[in-house]
């Protein structure tokens, strides 16, 4: 589904990703872990098409298309979704109207007719139950004054509404308590199926207790230095990132 080959990228002249290789297939859950500054969020941003990041080398193929050639909205319409680490507050933009616009713009891109009000409402009710989000929250301005947990739940709700093929969760657990992590993770798990995939980007292992990955990759200095199964996440939790750093500095010598 997603094939990243030798991806080098940076921001404002500073190189952050130094040759990432990653292959994600439908039905899989991958986790990218790594210490602060290792390039986790950069990878998520580059994949979603944030314009201030510059791709220097390499390729990303998503469902047979050159992902790097697409605008952020095209990537979304092709089935890529990024759950933001810091969802943006937009006063004055009604959440439901925003989601309705998004759903219909994606349909338009795919050559489908806009969803009528009844069908949209039905889908909304369905997905609201799935991620445990209240109508009162959706009647408000987008993320304005939402708590950390509410913002993240809103991200997962948008994901549910857009039904992406690949969802990238960027530090979705940051700033959340255990209950909020459980609610958000439940939402993600309910959305999983054999046709879609999830890429979890996280510093801590705790989110992976709820969204259990098939593969864990450790990112360090802009490269994947270790890959394994979920046991690798536990090892990191126990030993910290230092052993990765040490191993890699030895290699460098």
């Amino acid at each position, binding site marked *: 589904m997603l094939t990243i080959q030798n991806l080098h990228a940076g921001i404002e002249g500073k190189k952050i990703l130094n040759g990432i290789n990653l292959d994600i297939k439908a039905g899989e859950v991958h986790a990218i872990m790594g210490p602060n500054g290792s390039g986790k969020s950069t990878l998520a941003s580059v994949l979603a098409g944030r314009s201030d990041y510059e791709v220097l080398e390499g390729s990303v193929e998503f469902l047979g298309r050159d992902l790097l050639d697409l605008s952020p909205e095209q990537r979304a319409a092709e089935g890529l979704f990024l759950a933001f680490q810091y969802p*943006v507050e937009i006063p004055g933009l009604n959440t439901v109207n925003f989601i309705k616009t*998004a759903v219909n713009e994606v349909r338009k891109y795919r050559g489908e007719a806009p969803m009528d009000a009844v069908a949209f409402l039905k889908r909304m009710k369905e997905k609201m139950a799935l991620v445990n989000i209240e109508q009162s929250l959706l009647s408000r301005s987008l993320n304005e004054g939402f708590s950390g947990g509410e913002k993240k739940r809103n991200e997962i709700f948008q994901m549910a509404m857009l039904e992406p093929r690949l969802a990238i969760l960027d530090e979705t657990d940051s700033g959340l308590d255990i209950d909020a992590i459980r609610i958000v993770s439940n939402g993600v798990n309910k959305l999983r199926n054999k046709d879609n995939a999830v890429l979890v980007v996280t510093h801590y292992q705790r989110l992976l207790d709820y969204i259990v990955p098939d593969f864990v990759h450790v990112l360090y200095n802009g490269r994947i230095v270790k890959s394994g199964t979920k046991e690798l996440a536990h090892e990191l939790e126990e030993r910290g990132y230092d052993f990765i750093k040490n191993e890699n500095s030895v290699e460098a010598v």
Partner: protein
Amino acid sequence: MNTIAYFKERFDQLQPNDDHGGLDKLREQAFQAFSNMGIPGSKHEEWKYTRVAGLFNKEFQLPADPLTGSISTEDLNKLRLPGHELASEIVFVNGFYSFSLSRIRSTGIQVLALEEAANNGYREFVAQWLGDSSHYQKDGINALNTAFVHGAVFINVDKGARIEHPLYIYHITDARSVNILSQPRSLMSVNEGAQLQVVENYTTLGSNESFTNQVMEIIVENEARLEYYKIQNDGTNTNQVSTTHIRQIGKSFTHTVTISLNGGLVRNNLNVVLDAKNCEAHLYGLYFQTGQSHLDNHTIVDNMKPNCLSNELYKGILNGHSTGVFNGKIFVRQPAQKTNAYQSNKNILLSDSCSVNTKPQLEIFADDVKCTHGCTVGRLNEEGLFYLQSRGISEKTARNLLLSAYSSDILEQVKPFALRGYIEKLISQRLEKDLS
């Protein structure tokens, strides 16, 4: 060229011989003041960024008589605002009140020719308040309007009258054959306990240039409530200096919203004088400028008495080569203890060639007051844009949504439902056009 000599000639021609309720003397004085002060140039502090002098280098006809015959009912129908079926409507044509086109549908509102009002029962009121704005607009432009007070109206809202439907005031300039300078003038008395919504709208017909130099003065009494809306969406060949002067002489509530979407050169003066204890005033503005347009909002809130509250929020979007000015003065006079005055001006610049000059100005002579002010000038929120795009929303639609969201808190302040819908439509059309 519209020189002082030109206006002198016109002034002498127009002067009638009788007294006209004392207006002649006022006109005479105003003309003298105009001759002394002349047209403000860029050295005049209040006109630094708005080059109105250039307008006077052009040829504008100052019509001598109401040309109401040239405006047909069909002309009017095309520009009537939604909700007009129930609203009262006052029509000015080339600065002159048109009796034949105006319709007062609400009891509780009387509209008289200003001279008639001054001659019949309102002489003292007119003498006391006509020209009150000149204490704040100390320039030749304001004096020029007063010097040519003809075809002006006096609007009275009865004591205790709660007017259900808005009063629409249309300013129509007929520039189909020549450039026109029009100078509408009105004086309004909102009596004790009265409630009224006023909407002013400006339209130029024809492709010649228009220059509207308007003054409206409103006196608001105890327990009265006034909502005032100004909608400026005229052609690029239109120019305006539009002064709205409100004096609250009893504990009262005013709420003004100025929406400026289009025009050539537009200068708004909005004065709110809080001349009684416990007054409340809300001042809102939304401007969306593009092309070569120039918009200047000068506001004054003058706190003269204790315990007043004023809240001011102006928001702007600039694009193309447009220029904007915001100048917000707040005076807190020495007796005006316990004043609460808030002011904010926010601007979004969409292009590299547009600009805005924003200046808050607080002059506080009382010690127990709460005043805040702030201004921002920035770009469209890039992070917000990316967020929306990452959900599949095209860049154009995303910009549209963000700018609509930005405008929404001002639009919410437009209380008449039909009017708000109308303005929302104008803005969405503008966004559609501007962002493509």
